[in-house]
């Protein structure tokens, strides 16, 4: 039992079996307010399963899951909208909670899709749809945000911007974020804690620790740990359009 008021979710020794095979096993994880936990790992390593365990979507699990918040937003890995269901972005935004028009607009504006508000969900491109999913999740102002590959299909510039946004949200809303991602390079820069999964937790810790871990190198290759070096230097400056270095006033 934890007494830390910053802990939103604590899972200990969690695992799930399906027809005699472990999908994931022995996962230990804590999500804190204002922090981003990222799960990385190859396909089929149990990333989404772990997210679902955190959300309480799997009923027959081993181990222990304690959740200390009810204000949860979820961006699933895949949402498909049936043709028979006509639904606009506007209708989707208030799916699980009523929001003021201002709140809807603000959230859509943050993810850069406020102009799509009266469009039908089925008419959106993959990237636009992901932005809408993310907007809906943050519009609720959750305490816990679970994002299962939230930027899939988003263009590269948008991807970087959205990860920046996710980082900002964790600070402004002081919410805990569980992020599942493939984009090692971006993830490593914008996260507080990394869990490297391959059916079980291979290694976990700060991005720097994980990148140095030999299990991580085995799983993702030598090159992947070099990715981090791009980010390891301190960002104390920005570049202007012509390449000049300007001291950042933050």
């Amino acid at each position: 039992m934890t007494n830390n008021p910053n802990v939103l979710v604590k899972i200990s020794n969690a695992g799930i079996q399906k027809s005699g095979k472990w999908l994931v096993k022995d996962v230990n994880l804590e999500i804190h307010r204002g922090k981003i936990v990222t799960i990385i790992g190859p396909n089929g390593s149990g990333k989404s399963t772990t997210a679902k365990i955190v959300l309480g979507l799997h009923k027959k699990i081993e181990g222990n899951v304690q959740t200390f918040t009810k204000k949860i937003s979820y961006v699933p890995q895949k949402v498909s909208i049936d043709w028979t269901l006509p639904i606009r972005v506007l209708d989707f935004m208030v799916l699980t909670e009523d929001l003021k028009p201002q709140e809807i607009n603000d959230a859509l504006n943050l993810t850069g899709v406020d102009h799509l508000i009266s469009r039908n969900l089925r008419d959106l491109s993959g990237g636009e749809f992901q932005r809408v999913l993310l907007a809906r999740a943050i519009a609720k102002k959750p305490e816990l945000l679970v994002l299962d590959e939230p930027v899939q299909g988003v263009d590269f510039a948008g991807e970087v911007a959205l990860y920046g946004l996710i980082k900002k949200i964790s600070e402004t809303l002081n919410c805990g974020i569980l992020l599942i991602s493939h984009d090692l390079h971006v993830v490593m820069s914008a996260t507080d804690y990394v869990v490297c999964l391959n059916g079980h937790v291979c290694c976990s810790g700060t991005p720097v620790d994980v990148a140095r871990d030999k299990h991580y190198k085995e799983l993702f290759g030598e090159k992947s740990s070099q990715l981090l070096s791009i980010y390891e230097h301190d960002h104390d400056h920005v570049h202007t359009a012509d390449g000049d270095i300007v001291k950042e006033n933050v």
Partner: protein
Amino acid sequence: MFDDFLFRALIAGIGIALVTGPLGCFVVWRRLSFFGDTLAHSALLGVLLSVAFDLNISLTIFTVSSLIALLLLRLQKTTNLPSDALLGLLSHSSLAVGLVILGFLSFIRFDIMGVLFGDILSVNVNDLLSIWIGGAIILLVLWFIWKPLFASTVNYELAEAEGMNPERVNAIFTILLAALIAISIKMVGLLLITGMLIIPTTMARNLSNNPKQMVILSIIGGLLSVFIGLYTSFEINTSSGPTIVVVALILFILSLIGIKKRNYG
């Protein structure tokens, strides 16, 4: 006024169309049309039990259909059979059991055609009461569970993760469907009730671009089918239940012209 059979039929039809509109939308969105059929078929068992034991017909149908619905939800969880196989199993076995029981009831004069296709013109004041009171309760419950039910229709896991309890609202929804079948069997009959649920709704889908609009249009479609269908059946002397469904079909065909313009044009 309630003495006039045509007027009673009209009031009954309006009551049913008001309920089939919104429920039909969820049936279509959730791909439950075969499920509606299964419940309707099980209603025959309910009708026969009520005749055999002299029970209230609507309550007996409601009980039998609800039990079948809950049995189905249970079987879906505990067996690995796909849903359509389970539905076929329940649908046809309840129909068959009903027909076997009918064989034992040869001493009772029983109008099987009325149960299969409905007999809207035999609707009495008691039927009107059960349609309108039952219908009001169904709509009230639907209104209360609208948000979680809609959320779990769009994405089950998202709804569950965000605390909407989809399993419970799904069970409530199937019971609402059973209740609708119970109050409307006398009017539209068990073979045609799914038609009343589905056809005005699919027409509405062709013409709408958001969920509320689709619900309203499917209510309007249902009402129009009842008005025109009743009038026509009276004028050209056809049976009223099938005529109402044929009108709904014609409205659907007309709506295809609208969809061509909207989606492909």
